[in-house]
């Protein structure tokens, strides 16, 4: 079976090599033009499966997820143990570390104040998607030190 990817008409920004210097030398950088770094390329691997969410609460603070962080969720990734995931338990969403080991399946917080949750069949836990990146506006990061 041969699958051909359909050419969806995505605009593609190309660096413009506008070289028409009427006198003088052409720019020596012309042969070395590269695209600017695009965070979308880095952070979004599967655009149609990627969603953003915002979090409230401190249960994941030791996993570098502070209050109000923006999380990038990729639903196309199959979760494996140790991934941070957006999970659904019953009717509620939560973000926790997904752990599967010989003792069972767990959702671990990243804050000593909270306990891990062992997942049972009846809980009907589902992984909604895997958290791939954490985006933080540094303005929300408080520091108690006196400078």
């Amino acid at each position, binding site marked *: *079976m041969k*699958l051909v990817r*359909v050419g*969806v008409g995505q605009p593609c920004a190309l660096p413009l090599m506008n070289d028409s210097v009427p006198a003088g030398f052409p720019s020596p950088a012309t042969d070395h033009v590269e695209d600017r770094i695009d965070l979308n390329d880095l952070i979004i691997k599967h655009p*149609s*499966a990627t969603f953003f969410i915002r979090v409230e609460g401190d249960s994941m603070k030791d996993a570098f*997820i502070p209050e109000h962080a923006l999380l990038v969720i990729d639903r196309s990734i199959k979760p494996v143990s140790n991934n941070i995931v957006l999970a659904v338990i*019953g*009717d509620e969403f*939560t973000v926790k570390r997904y752990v599967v080991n010989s003792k069972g399946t767990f959702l671990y917080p990243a804050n000593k104040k909270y306990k891990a949750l062992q997942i049972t069949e009846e809980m009907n836990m589902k992984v909604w998607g895997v958290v791939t990146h954490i985006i933080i506006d540094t303005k929300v990061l408080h520091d108690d030190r006196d400078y």
Partner: protein
Amino acid sequence: MIGIIDCNSFYASCERIFQPKLEGKPVIVLSNNDGCAIALTDEAKALGIKMGTPAHYIDKDVLLKNNVTMFSSNYTLYGDISKRVTDTIGEFVPRMEIYSIDEAFIDLSGIAMKDIEPLAHKIRQTIKQHIGIPVTIGIAKTKTLAKLCNRFAKKTKKDGGVHIATTQQQVDEVLHFTQIGDVWGIGAQHAKMLQLHKIKTAYDFIQLPQQWVLKEMTVVGLRMYRELMQQASIKWEFQPPRKKNIATGRSFGKLLSDAPTIAEALSNYAGNVALKLRQEKSCAKALTVFLNTNPFRPEDKQYARSITLELPVATNSTNEIVAYALKGFHYIYAEGYNFLKVGVNVGEIVPEENVQIGLFDETDRDKNNKVMKALDTINNIYGRDTVRLAVQGFEKKWKMRQARLSNRYTTNINQLLTVKI
């Protein structure tokens, strides 16, 4: 082979992605202005609620007792989710025809017969996992049969959401199952006529002589007849055809009688139409404005008028379209009525590059085009209607009722899903 991928209760399924507590519960999505039910989950249908039922006719007790959730339609969200679904389908098949916001035909002609069923299941699982939307897939030799297979899969709930009819026996099973009125593309008139002739199912229909079908139902009926006989007769439309006319008009949130407010609503609709024309790189040469009261309020004096203006030069510029719409409106407006709806419809649409310039045209079209380009660029970056004509106003007294609107979770950074952790 041809497949049709149809999203199950699409609008309601979009809402469920971000509210998992609605899984397995009845959900209803209402039309513009929260008018009537336009999407129902199976659970809502099971309560006897029907498509098209006006919202205020739905029994409040039934809603309360069964924990039914109702939404205003959130087309921004549905449009984005739809795009995600079609992009995902595009990763699996070489060609598709996007048929509507929640349906796409896929061309499976290059794929070996034995690979089709596994591929269909793979597409279905991928859309469910990546986006969260459940879909049903029907596959057969023609578009019409594929549609019937899809319906078969949905109604019988067999085959895990994919139904394929390749052999004559499989096709006959689907034809027997489908009532004649449920065949894709049959009109109510023809369905009634056929029932009078004791044609109950699609299978009965293809037993008729071809000549009879041609005589009683013209070539349209014959095409359907052939499609049901596994002879593909409906062409692919991989590129959406250029629209023949573009219309925007909506009922107001409440009845209005004053000209300035109605004119403001109309200006906004006309602005939308102009934007749609520019997006399609088309211009329109005719414009119709219509205005009417609510025919379902017998206590009100009734009034309905429309007027068509022939424009000197085909255009897609917001200021021209809005100006002509208002001109038309002032011809047909009358005082002392409770108006329900105003709208604008443009026709005689031509590609931008084929516009005939008028001999006595004094509009500076180059300048106008530049202004429109700047307007579209700004509005693309800062959001729809950031820059608009003064006449489009700010108050929006005429605005749609959308009391139960969900967030634009995927397109607006201030409306993301927020999770307490």
